[in-house]
């Protein structure tokens, strides 16, 4: 059974300044299912709607963001949650951090700079569960970070004393302290170097493998998805254009945008010239008609300019939204 079921979600930013109204269609018709015990990657460039999608999934919808259509249903064991119609107080008590937690991009901004790390742990555990005995709690936390392979003295350090990679791993430790069923990681390693990135992603994978929960990993770096994710969805201008198991995305992708993302990656040992994609990412306040990728697509057809391609199921959990695929299977 799916842990999360999203159907045809549309979330727009609506602003009105001096009588001029503007609608930014950040998430425009996204459907997805997350299964228990998998790492699901979402890839896409900046301003393609990745972060808006996360906001809706984690239940932090605030104006000017508005939900226009669609459903978001969670199934935590026997506990069902309709995220779009849910009391925010109950969300805080019984869902957030216990069932869904979040690893942000910049760990410096989640850790209080003037308090030791252990105090941040204390705040979070106290808010969501309550602490009876501080001594027991300290020992529990010490064991917990030790189990994650972090040196116990990080608990007594201030955030600025830790290196960037260690700080990000502390943020992951914080996010997983209640063993949530879903961990949402938004660009968790984008600010880090390759060596540190590897260490942080290894920790995330280890935690996932041990507690068998689901990780929603959002990053624009395709190489990270290749190494970490089980399934990958490619997002472009507010829509999913392709979704498949990682091996298929990297071996047999069908959408021209996915193919470009993969072929443009430089590799050590290969100096052959690589083309870059022309044009600019679309403006979501005024997106192109039809397929939103068509102004930059090298294989554009006449139908692409006018008709939005539907998501086609190719079997083997491979879905793609492209008129070329439809033409080929016809």
């Amino acid at each position, binding site marked *: 059974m799916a842990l999360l079921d999203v159907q045809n979600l549309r979330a727009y930013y609506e602003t009105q300044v001096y009588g001029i109204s503007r609608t930014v269609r950040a998430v425009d018709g996204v459907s997805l299912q997350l299964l228990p015990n998998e790492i699901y990657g979402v890839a896409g*460039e*900046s301003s393609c709607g990745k972060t808006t999608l996360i906001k809706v999934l984690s239940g932090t919808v605030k104006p000017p963001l508005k939900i226009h259509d669609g459903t978001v249903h969670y199934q935590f064991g026997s506990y069902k949650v309709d995220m779009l119609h849910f009391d925010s107080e109950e969300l805080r008590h019984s869902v957030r951090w216990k069932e869904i937690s979040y690893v942000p991009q910049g760990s410096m901004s989640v850790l209080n700079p003037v308090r030791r790390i252990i105090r941040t742990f204390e705040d979070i555990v106290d808010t969501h569960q309550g602490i009876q005995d501080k001594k027991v709690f300290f020992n529990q936390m010490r064991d917990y970070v030790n189990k994650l*392979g972090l*040196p116990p*003295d*990080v608990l007594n*350090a201030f955030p600025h*004393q*830790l*290196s*960037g*990679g*260690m700080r990000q791993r502390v943020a992951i430790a914080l996010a997983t302290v209640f063993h949530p069923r879903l961990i949402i990681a938004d660009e968790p390693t984008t600010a880090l*170097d*390759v*060596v*540190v*990135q*590897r*260490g942080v992603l*290894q920790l995330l*994978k280890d935690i996932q493998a041990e507690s068998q929960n689901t990780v929603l990993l959002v990053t*624009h*770096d*395709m*190489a*990270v998805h*290749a*190494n*970490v994710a089980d399934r990958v969805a490619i997002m472009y201008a507010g829509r999913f254009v392709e979704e498949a198991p*990682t*091996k298929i995305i*990297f*071996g047999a992708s069908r959408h021209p945008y996915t193919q*470009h*993302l*993969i072929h*443009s*990656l*430089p*590799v*050590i*040992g290969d*100096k052959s*010239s*690589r*083309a*870059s*994609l022309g044009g*600019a*990412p679309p403006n979501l306040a005024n997106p192109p008609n039809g397929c939103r990728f068509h102004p930059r697509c090298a294989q554009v057809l006449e139908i692409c300019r006018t008709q939005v391609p539907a998501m086609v199921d190719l079997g083997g959990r491979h879905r793609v939204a492209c008129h070329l695929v439809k033409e080929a299977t016809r």
Partner: protein
Amino acid sequence: MNANDKLLDVQHVTQIFHIGGLIGGSRLVAVNDVSFSLDRARPEIFTLAGESGSGKTTLAHLLLHDLDPMKGQVLFEGRDVSQIRKRKQVMEFMKKVQPVFQNPFETFNPLRRVEDYLYDTAIHFGRAKDHRTAAPIVDEVLRNVGLSLEEVSKRYPHELSGGQIQRMSVARALIPQPDLILADEPVSMVDASLRMAIVNLFRKLRDENKVSVVYITHDLATAYYISDRIAIMLRGNFVESGPVEAVLDRPLHPYTQLLKESLPSPNPSGLESWAKHIALGTTDVKEYGRVGCKFAGRCPRVMDICTKADPPDVQADGRTVKCYLYADGAK
């Protein structure tokens, strides 16, 4: 050798910062005895690669005459950069050495049109008398980077995509017709689909405009793609430097090997080596203060001698490597 054969000659440069209060505190050697040079006759792309805190940006400041080295010299066209004092000399130097920065949205004032910076640069460096005569120069550099004046005129920074605006900042750097461009992480803020446009642009500048580029990055894959030579930096030291094919195809230093191995490959098979667990430093400052090789605390092949004295520079297999592992072969 005649000093004028060298466009840029960095000789044993060291920069030390003092952290902490007046009493106590600690010394941080941000750049430690670094030397390299660029030939005038043969333009090339020279990459400085390393993780954050490796001293890349400090070295860039030294090359740009923002900082003067505490030891050693930076020679540009045979002249000591730290001796540049007079306004005329500074202008002359700025004309020949131009920077491109990491975040294009911070480079440009959000309330000013981007093209104004290009006109200003043209007038400031004396390539044009006024706005009208500057227009063809601006258009020419924009065409050089694959844009045109019609496309970007009257636009503010937020109206351009990250790739476009970063190309604008390269175009701005090209106006004084520099011999050397210093690009500090020029693609790290740019989306993957636009990244190759910038990187290809540096290639074109080298091949067609004969501009040398010092490319500072932590992304080894793009470094391999564009550069001729590379230097891997770790805590202020060049641990391995040489032709990019030699250094990245067959890395010798354990740190370079770790870097290359850690680079996630865009291929889902072959994950085994990447999944092998690695040791990370807890704090940054600890490694700076380390005696001997800075990598010794994390090195899988550490020896007793590594923690006692700085390793020597060894010539091996067409590159320079700072490691005791190869010291015997050199003798």
